[in-house]
């Protein structure tokens, strides 16, 4: 198996040409409303993961389980990258480790050029707003005792300068929510509304990378498309890079440029979405594609 990984892992080489164009465009957009010095400059990849290994220890048996095995990937500024795989393939572990939230594991993770193993707590706190996560369960990721307004206010009080660029009502408008939603509590929101609130919170921080962990799988089918469109739109408007974790190939295809296919903790195939979907090389990718609803009816070649 390891030769497969060796051959296909370097995600950076397989970057999509369009992603590069995006980067250039976005950097131009960014400079207008960005007075802050972002340090490393726009050529630095937002996220680089280098031969990451994360192991979980089973509490009862004491066995080590390798959730993420020698994974490397790279997300340039403004790129949109997907990690697909079945549940248990390690994609969420990868995302959590990459954002400095979960178990860090072995191997190097660099956020905006800062190696996570080298930065202190203070610096990590400063990096945190640059990476915002949108979780799978929108209701679960909102404090049940906090109204939408007070949630936004809390973030503003943490990062006054960073969040001063937009008013609450305008922010909500960007995610297509009525201002009346401000005084609601999470249980008074529908799933779609709650996820939009989560996206609004992420957006408020003007992140350089948005990590979306199955952002639509907890939602109604009718709402899924709206939320995806919203993520796409935000990416286009703000130039934030997107790391999408999903098991749904249709979702990935509609939003992302580059895809990494994970299987049992390893990346078995990666490349531009179109290439991978048109000419899958790994058996598992083929299986995934065949399992996709409607795949049979689409021309394969």
């Amino acid at each position, binding site marked *: 198996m390891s030769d497969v990984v060796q051959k296909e892992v370097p995600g950076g080489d397989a970057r999509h040409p369009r992603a590069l164009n995006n980067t250039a465009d976005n950097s131009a957009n960014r400079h207008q409303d960005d007075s802050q010095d972002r340090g490393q400059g726009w050529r630095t990849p937002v996220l680089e993961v280098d031969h990451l290994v994360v192991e979980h220890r089973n509490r009862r048996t004491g066995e080590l389980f390798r959730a993420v095995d020698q994974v490397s990937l790279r997300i340039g500024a403004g790129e949109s990258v997907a990690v697909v795989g079945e549940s248990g393939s390690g994609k969420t572990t990868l995302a959590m480790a990459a954002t400095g939230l979960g178990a860090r594991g072995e191997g190097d993770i660099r956020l905006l050029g800062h190696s996570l193993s080298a930065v202190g707590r203070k610096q990590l706190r400063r990096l*945190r*707003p640059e990476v915002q996560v949108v979780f799978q369960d929108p*209701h679960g990721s909102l404090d049940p005792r906090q109204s939408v307004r007070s949630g936004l206010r809390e973030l503003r009080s943490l*990062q006054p300068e960073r969040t001063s660029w937009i008013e609450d009502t305008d922010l909500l408008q960007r995610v297509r929510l009525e201002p009346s939603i401000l005084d609601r509590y999470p*249980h008074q929101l*529908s*799933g*779609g509304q709650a996820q939009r609130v*989560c996206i609004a919170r992420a957006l408020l921080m003007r992140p350089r990378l948005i990590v979306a962990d199955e952002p639509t799988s907890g939602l109604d089918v009718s709402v899924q498309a709206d939320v995806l469109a919203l993520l796409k739109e935000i990416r286009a408007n703000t130039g934030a890079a997107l790391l999408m974790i999903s098991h749904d190939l249709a979702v990935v295809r509609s939003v992302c440029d580059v895809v990494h296919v994970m299987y049992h903790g390893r990346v078995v195939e990666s490349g531009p979405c179109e290439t991978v979907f048109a000419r899958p090389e790994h058996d598992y990718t083929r299986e995934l594609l065949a399992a996709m609803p409607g795949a049979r009816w689409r021309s394969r070649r």
Partner: protein
Amino acid sequence: MKTGPAANNVAVPPTKSGTPAATTGGATPAAAKNGRSRRAGALRRAAARIAALLASLLIALSMAFMLGRLSGDPTTTILGPMATAEQREALRHDLGLDRPLLVQYFDYLKGVLTGDLGQSLQFYQSNTSMIMDRLPFTLQLVAAGISLAVLVGVPLGVLAATREGTWWDRAASTVALLGQSVPVFWFGMMLVVLFAVNLGWLPAGQSGTLKHLVLPALTMSVYPMAQIARLTRASMSEALAEPYIDAAKARGITGRRVVWRHAFKNAMMPILTIVVLQTGILMSGAVAVEYVYSWPGLGQLALQAIQFRDFPLVQAIVVFGALVFVLLNLLVDVIHSIVDPRVR
């Protein structure tokens, strides 16, 4: 807490997971109609709650009444074993004990409603006024004890929960376990031996100055402190495992704020409940502490009443305790509805 107009237009039931709520889609169209029925539902729930509390109060009253009648003949205690049958009969008549039980019962209920808890057999005084005389002492003691319990128990529980599985956690849990298992009277006496007899720092009993309050309050706080600490730990570690805690961290909210503003706020309700209920238990269960420190509170009074078979006084104290308990329960409900936006 904020109550905007939107807070009432609620169609989505308080479900925790995303999916059931999601099926209702945009919650707004049905909102106006549901606002009223939801409020009506809340009112109905409040009414049912109050009815239940009144029912339990009535049961407590009846049991107190029955216990009073079952605890032997008070005329023996009052008149002594040498009294003649006629004397006893006369006293029974004076006390109204020769009337049918049902009449006595309704008389008693009527008295309770008007705040008249009868007359003590040994002090020849109104029970209500005696309870009111002793109440400030007990209140003082309970207030000091429960404050101490909260001030130590809550941080201890939070400490254990935030450092789950570490040495801190084990130490805190051990302290809580000890506090729960140590007998109050023994602990009280040990404190007296140490601080009053050997060190001579604090008085061993009686009331009066703040110094007098220290040992009894400390003794009293141990059990509720342990309870509060254990519950805080359990409640906090549950709250800390919720996805919104990770989400808050991901948004860049720092550790202490996550613990107190998000986890603790959500873990608070059971803690608050047990604090209020423990207050009720202390109010009516201060007997041992008050005895050890000869503190002139309700517990002492209850002890005297029991020793003398002063059943109207025992009954009055039990009734008073039940009333306090019911009121505290009501308080918990009110606090709950204020603190939790989902109940409103």
